[in-house]
């Protein structure tokens, strides 16, 4: 069994628009291990979804610029669409950010699932539906949802149905894009745990879990990758990242998360001044430098990706110097 399901090297994917290029994914390198849930965090607009969709479909205006992506041995950036199609749902699958809106309003869930599976050459016989029912049961849904239309389902139910659909052919690699953002806390917890369960049950091999909410990642991710403004910032085992962040951005991000039990009155959290840069026609250099308290002139140049520890990489000129400074504050 191979160690890495996914290997991404120096991936660049830009949006070509009227006014220029939005460098939404710029030089991102990482890999995804077999059996792992990788959390991908970063603020809105930092390119998380873009990164995900660059694996899935590079439709206009998104444009693949350079870099390699190896998905279980397939160089997917070089594959043509018809070939890649065969990988979909079986090898690579997605639970989209817009999961609640991923239904055709006029089709029953059953038809939808059957149609989608059939397109992948699966016979939609009784055995198939037994499997579907099993899966529904797993996410605590009654099999009667199969005969319903999407509008008859609540948000949490829809989210779960999409989870079932996206994983019905046991994909090796699953991208879960903000699957919890639109949900209530209770559903959030359920859905997130469910994802981990899927992996534990080996229904999926590994997954990228995208969110802007670090605290959820903390619950289920094995490793966490932080992106900032289209750039890779830091990647590492969850506890490492939380306890021993090496990138100033990661650090600030974690510091700015309130926790139950901490009140303003007692302990004021520090935010990060300023706002992320616009990705349109952005130039060289560390993209965090404007907001970074530790920025130096060197930061005008793009920092390299360096290893901190086993499985822990960071992209910052000053990680070594600051190292201890940053960690242990908590």
């Amino acid at each position, binding site marked *: 069994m191979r160690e890495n399901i996914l290997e991404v090297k120096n991936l660049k994917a830009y949006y070509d628009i009227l006014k220029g290029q939005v460098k939404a994914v710029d030089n991102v390198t990482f890999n995804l291990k077999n059996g792992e849930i990788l959390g991908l965090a970063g603020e809105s607009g930092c390119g998380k979804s873009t990164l995900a969709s660059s694996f899935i479909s590079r439709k206009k*205006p998104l444009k693949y610029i350079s870099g390699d992506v190896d998905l279980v041995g397939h160089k997917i950036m070089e594959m043509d669409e018809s070939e890649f199609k065969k990988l979909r749902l079986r090898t690579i699958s997605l639970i989209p950010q817009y999961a609640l809106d991923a239904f055709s309003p006029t089709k029953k869930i059953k038809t939808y699932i059957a149609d989608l599976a059939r397109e992948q050459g699966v016979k939609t016989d009784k055995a198939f539906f037994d499997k579907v029912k099993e899966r529904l049961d797993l996410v605590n849904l009654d099999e009667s949802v199969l005969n319903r239309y999407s509008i008859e389902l609540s948000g949490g139910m829809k989210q779960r149905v999409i989870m079932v659909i996206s994983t019905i052919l046991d994909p090796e690699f699953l991208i879960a894009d903000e699957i919890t953002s639109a949900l209530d806390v209770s559903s959030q917890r359920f859905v997130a745990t469910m994802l981990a369960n899927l992996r534990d049950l080996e229904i999926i091999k590994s997954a990228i879990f995208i969110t802007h909410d670090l605290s959820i990642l903390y619950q289920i991710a094995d490793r966490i990758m932080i992106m900032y403004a289209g750039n890779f910032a830091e990647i590492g085992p969850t506890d490492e990242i939380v306890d021993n962040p090496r990138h100033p951005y990661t650090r600030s991000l974690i510091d700015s998360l309130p926790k139950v039990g901490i009140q303003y009155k007692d302990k004021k959290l520090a935010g990060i001044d300023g706002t992320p840069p616009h990705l349109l026609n952005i130039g060289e250099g560390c993209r965090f430098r404007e907001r970074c308290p530790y920025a130096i002139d060197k930061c005008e140049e793009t920092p390299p990706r360096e290893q901190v520890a086993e499985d822990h990489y960071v992209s910052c000129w000053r990680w070594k110097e600051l190292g201890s400074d940053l960690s242990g504050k908590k």
Partner: protein
Amino acid sequence: MFKDFWAKHENLYYALSNKKVIFGLTIVVLVFMLAAFGPMLTPYEYGEYAGAGYLPPSSDHFFGTTIDGRDVFTRTVYGLRSTLLVGAIAGTIATLVGCIIGFVAGYYGGTIFDELLMMLTNIFVVIPQLALLIVIAAFLEVRGVVIMAVIVSLTAWPWTARAVRSQTLSLKNQEYVSLSKISALNVGRILREDIASNMFSYVFMVFIQQFNSTMLATVQLEFLGLGPTKGISLGLVMQNAVNWNGIQLGMWWWAIIPGLILAILITALYFVNTGLDAAFNPRLREM
């Protein structure tokens, strides 16, 4: 400053950089110029016998002559004028009425008032337009351009009302409207600055559609002999052409050209509208 302008009127920028809009606008402008300046290019009056009958297009008669020797070009350009005029007036009235009703209904959305207005609108939507117009037109002793426009717009507004209403409904629930409310702005200013001005591009598109459909409706009425009882119009030119066997006699310039101009104009306006839609609607905006 200039950049600012485009920044503020981003939509306009997208609109004007859309190929469909440019293409459509060019044709529309040409047709309008034809209507505006065409009469200057012709030495004839539209009712005058300008030469022999049955003449195909030539440098003397750009669009040939009718069976009895009138200049088709002259008739067409004058007819175009009046048809455009009816379209413009009727389009304006229909848009206005539709906007007002839609606006009021939307603004008071959910109230009985709204329900009643919408009911009225729905009623007008199902009534067969032309049949009603025929009946009404038959009543009028004299039909001038304005009256034509009024009766045509009578059945044209409901579409607009519906559309504007839902537009208003969504605008009204925008948070900036709430902000204006809690800033104690008066209703008039809210309507003007927050709702109406944000609806402008939309209303503009609606107007184009109304312009189109009222022109078509007018021409149909004219064709049935229920057009203005005075003057000339495209529908009348075509009615004459058909009644006087223009088609059978192979006088395509008489029967076909006026309709063609109209069809091209409306097609061009469709283009403008589709282009504008793409420009105004980010979802369809082509990069």
